[in-house]
């Protein structure tokens, strides 16, 4: 059974929990994955998002999330203007992605330092989201848990090293997934955690042998 505040709540900016509140959370996740302020956002919208995004303010909601606003922030409706004032460039395209959830967005961000992130996710109802792809790697991330992500060389022992660091920091792994593009090349590991890992734990993961990059995403 759902809790009291799933029924009377959440506090949100209208008009739609899936097309507005969920879209803010998708933008927020993309911003957290990028790990810095975005200078540029190119967004592709599929399905119902592509059809109805203007009427639901989905475009404003996604940009609001990328700006770091929460789903109950009243500035969401002015998000496009706020982004323009900050010099962030935003563009939207409607696309058709085979077999994608009807409320899917692909968000490509370029950060202020030049870092990039391409995040695909769907708003799956009631404001809940599912991130399904990061930079070409298939993932399943809901944003309900803090996550640790590594990009590493696909070779034996990396998982042991990283999970050992988490174990030593007394951080429990709730869900875990490993994916790669090709054998022996680059791979990605995603761990959803019961606690947010400390910055030094993330740094230790980064320093681990065969790990190219590691970053943490807080729960949203």
């Amino acid at each position, binding site marked *: 059974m759902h809790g009291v505040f799933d029924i009377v709540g959440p506090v*949100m900016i209208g008009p739609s929990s899936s097309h507005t509140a969920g879209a803010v959370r998708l933008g927020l996740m993309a911003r957290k994955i990028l790990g810095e302020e975005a200078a540029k956002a190119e967004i592709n919208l599929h399905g119902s998002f592509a059809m109805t995004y203007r009427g*639901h303010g989905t475009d404003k909601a996604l940009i609001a999330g990328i700006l770091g606003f929460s789903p109950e922030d009243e500035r969401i409706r002015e998000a496009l203007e706020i982004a323009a004032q900050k010099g962030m460039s935003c563009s939207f395209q409607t696309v058709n992605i085979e077999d994608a959830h009807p409320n899917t967005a692909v968000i490509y961000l370029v950060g202020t330092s030049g870092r990039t992130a391409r995040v695909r996710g769907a708003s799956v109802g009631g404001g809940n989201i599912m991130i399904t792809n990061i930079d070409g790697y298939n993932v399943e991330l809901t944003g309900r848990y803090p996550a640790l992500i590594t990009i590493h060389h696909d070779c034996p022992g990396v998982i042991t090293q990283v999970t050992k660091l988490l174990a030593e920091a007394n951080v429990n792994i709730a869900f875990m997934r490993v994916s790669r593009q090709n054998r022996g090349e680059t791979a990605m590991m995603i761990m959803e955690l019961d606690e947010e890992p400390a910055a030094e734990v993330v740094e230790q993961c980064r320093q681990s042998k065969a790990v190219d990059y590691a970053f943490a995403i807080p729960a949203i």
Partner: protein
Amino acid sequence: MVNFNTIGELVALAGAQQVPLHEIVIQHEIHVSQQERTAIVTAMEKNWQVMKASIERGISNQEKSLSGLTGGDAKRLYDYQDKGYMGRQVLSAAAYAVGISEVNAVMGRIVACPTAGSCGIVPAALYAAQQKKNLPDAAIVMALFTAAGIGMVVDQNASIAGAQGGCQAECGTAAGMAAAALVELAGGSPQAAANATALAIKNLLGLVCDPVAGLVEVPCVKRNGFAAVEAMLAADMSLAGVESVIPVDEVIDAMNRIGKALPKSLRETSEGGLATTPTAKALTKRIYPQV
């Protein structure tokens, strides 16, 4: 711990402890969320503050929604409240509900209750009750727990999503939640509150979800006004001693079966009903010229 899966069980627990429904709902939430009572009550107080702010904004709103389909009707109705057949009490409640829905449509801040599409009904009915009976905010906050308890059971045993159960699942559930809360606020028994839920939901069974252009506006905004008034009538009927022949849990089961029997075209896909009328099609074309 207290646990309930039906309204009947919720009423029986309240009867056994000799407490109002909201007390059982709070005890359940304390156990499930592992939070302190004060934290839970404070969170609900915050929701009530947001609800009140959305009402005040709604009845003075003159802004049109992004699509241009709605906006300004709550103020029209509120300004008319002394002149109508239905009287100030009822017309102001309808204006509150329409107003909250208009705030939702202009990307304002609301509390989903149980959904964004039905967000006007419970707060409007409770605000009208607060004014009529001069009730403190604390009493309304407790009534919101009662409303939540009803919604939790409907959510579990039927649905609160238009895409699954049609509008009966959204506005029907909200009216049932509001009716129970109103009965409790008037001093009615838990049994009378449950009976009001049955009366309210029964009258909205079969209501389909066929929004024009896929937006939470037509018919949703005005329907919130109708459903708030319906919840008040259901509460008054129950307080007057009118009994639902079909018990509330059987009504919820009927809602579930009706929802499953509804074609997909009438479950929030905008592929049928009002959404495919000539006027709706023309409006859709105007709103989305690129499609």
